[in-house]
């Protein structure tokens, strides 16, 4: 990423670069840069004196600067007078011409196969892609997965229902709480129990915060892959504030084992509202900073708009869900369609994109963070009082204090942690909206204390199927932008 800053002229104003005169004639005009100057603490230092409004981006953009070219007399390096103006524009980088013209007469001999990954920093884990290239253009792609397969569905058959969340939380390690929620909802449906309202509200609070933290990682890695390295630092920094709250509540930053069949593992910690309020206060301002950094950044736009396009029809045919589906213009969110844990009582919008390209997927994620924060705020304001788990001694362990005084409590505790509880035979499929899409749990019980079969419908697994169509006939350089925008988590793909 070329981010050479323009030098300041006297008076502290950057040279006036009308950003609407970007040279990409075919592209839609970029939105005018935000006029925000108010930076919150910790953000990049303001480049203008306080009180003065900055009206341009501090980024060098080809073609927008004052003409500076002076003919040189450096002998052979000098551009000859016979050069046309168009050719000069190309040589000086004012015009980027990367539209490959496909030649039908290229034979198979001119195609080459490139293996990308599994050990590649931009594949987000151990994803391997076989790319069939023609020059620099991708003709065919084959995703090859399984490098992180650890047989978690087999493991789930060995663990009791009560131990199950420990296992599933390690699947999608960026959205562990959603995995636990899908599993717990499936177990509860087979048991035929309803959790208390406070438990449901805590579940929504935690999973929506988890969605924010997961989307922040998606923004961070998406930025890093395209070259916006600051975005990576910012995204992980803000995510840490949420993980700190998770650690305070669940004891762990990841792999929480917090949402369990019958409720949650523990009540929210004392003064949790202060922590959540701090996150709610902090994040929207930070998101504005990210918008300043990326939203109208011409380089970001050039790398993302029109890249990796997945149309609505393709997304539906390939079972794509989540932000990738909504970016294609399909208004589909499981929180709306099949509400779980009482999420339908909170007000939120479902952001929808238009063109289904990398840029729209990025915008949908940013907007979803704001919507999730809205839900978190509503949960915080109206959290019901009561128990945080069902009062059924067969399903949830007794309080620690009761074990010392009650023989029954001791027996329940012992039985629960040695044998677990039995679940009536039956089968069900429960899906929640994870940050990556429909995260489903197909659970079959044969009346024992372990699941007979536990299958997770992993959203990343299905979303990866779209890579071949999203990347067909695009440039190799766009590969990483496309992968990053699908936000695959290989633990979720391979399980």
């Amino acid at each position, binding site marked *: 990423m070329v981010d050479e800053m323009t030098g300041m002229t006297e008076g502290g104003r950057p040279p006036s670069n009308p950003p609407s005169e970007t040279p990409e004639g075919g592209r839609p005009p970029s939105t005018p840069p935000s006029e925000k100057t108010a930076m919150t603490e910790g953000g990049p230092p303001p480049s203008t004196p306080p009180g003065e409004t900055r009206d341009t981006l501090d980024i060098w953009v080809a073609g927008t600067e004052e003409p500076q070219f002076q003919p040189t007399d450096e002998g052979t390096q000098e551009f000859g007078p016979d050069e046309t103006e168009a050719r000069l524009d190309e040589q000086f980088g004012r015009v980027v011409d990367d539209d490959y013209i496909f030649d039908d007469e290229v034979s198979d001999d001119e195609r080459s196969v490139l293996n990308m990954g599994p050990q590649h920093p931009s594949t987000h884990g151990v994803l391997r892609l076989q790319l069939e290239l023609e020059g620099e253009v991708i003709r065919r792609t084959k995703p090859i997965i399984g490098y992180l397969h650890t047989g978690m569905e087999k493991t789930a058959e060995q663990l009791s229902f009560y131990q199950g969340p420990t296992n599933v939380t390690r699947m999608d390690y960026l959205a562990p709480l959603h995995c636990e929620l899908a599993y717990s909802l499936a177990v509860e449906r087979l048991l035929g129990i309803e959790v208390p309202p406070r438990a449901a509200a805590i579940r929504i609070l935690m999973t929506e915060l988890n969605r924010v933290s997961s989307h922040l990682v998606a923004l961070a890695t998406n930025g890093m892959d395209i070259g916006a390295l600051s975005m990576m630092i910012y995204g992980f920094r803000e995510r840490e504030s949420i993980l700190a709250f998770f650690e305070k509540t669940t004891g762990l930053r990841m792999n929480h084992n917090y949402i369990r069949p019958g409720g949650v593992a523990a009540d929210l910690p004392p003064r949790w509202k202060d922590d959540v309020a701090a996150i709610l206060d902090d994040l929207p301002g930070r998101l504005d900073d990210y918008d300043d950094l990326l939203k109208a950044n011409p380089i970001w736009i050039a790398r993302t708009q029109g890249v990796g396009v997945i149309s609505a029809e393709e997304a539906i045919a390939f079972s794509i869900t989540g932000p990738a589906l909504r970016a294609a213009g399909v208004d589909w969110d499981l929180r709306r369609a099949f509400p779980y844990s009482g999420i339908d009582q909170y007000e939120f919008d479902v952001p929808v994109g238009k063109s289904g390209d990398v840029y729209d997927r990025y915008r949908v994620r940013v907007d979803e963070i704001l919507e999730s924060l809205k839900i978190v705020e509503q949960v915080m304001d109206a959290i019901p009082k009561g128990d945080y788990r069902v009062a059924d001694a067969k399903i949830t362990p007794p309080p620690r204090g009761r074990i010392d005084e009650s023989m029954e409590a001791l027996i329940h505790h012992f039985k629960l942690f040695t044998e677990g509880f039995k679940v009536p035979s039956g*089968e*069900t499929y429960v899906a929640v909206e994870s940050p990556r899409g429909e995260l489903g749990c197909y659970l079959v019980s044969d009346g024992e204390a372990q699941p007979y079969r536990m299958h997770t419908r992993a959203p990343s*697994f299905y979303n990866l199927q779209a890579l071949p169509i999203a990347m067909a006939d695009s440039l190799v350089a766009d590969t990483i932008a496309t992968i990053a925008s699908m936000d695959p988590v290989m633990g979720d793909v391979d399980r």
Partner: protein
Amino acid sequence: MNPVLESLAAGFDTVAWEESHGQDVARVPGEDWEAFARAAKEIGFEVCADVTAVDWLRQRPERYEVVANLLSIAHRTRLRMITSVGREDPTVASLTPIWPGAGFAEREVYDMFGIHFDGHPDLTRILMPDEWEGHPLRKDFGVGSVPVQFKESHQVS
């Protein structure tokens, strides 16, 4: 039953309908699997959300169940179709020509259970290595063990 499904139910008398915890389940005979899926797509189940399988080993006469979870965005409803597959030569028609999204899922079922899908364009192992022997999610496939010192059996599972 969801009213959306009534026209579908009328076309297939061999299909048994159930309700499982509030979800509609169609038990489809193996020979009707593909025709039923096409009919379901016709009436608006445009997404094949998931394909998986269950191994019932000796508990049921037909050893395997192939389970497909369909989703209708237009009607906001789900439908689960299940078919039984026998122990000898477990084969069922592929859903991939109908819903391309079923491709990975059917490869996973093939990999994990050894069930063949007729008409799948690329039925190869997806999660396990190509040279792997056996199908790990079958109930008669062991979970494996790790040698441990200072144990009488030297093996814990």
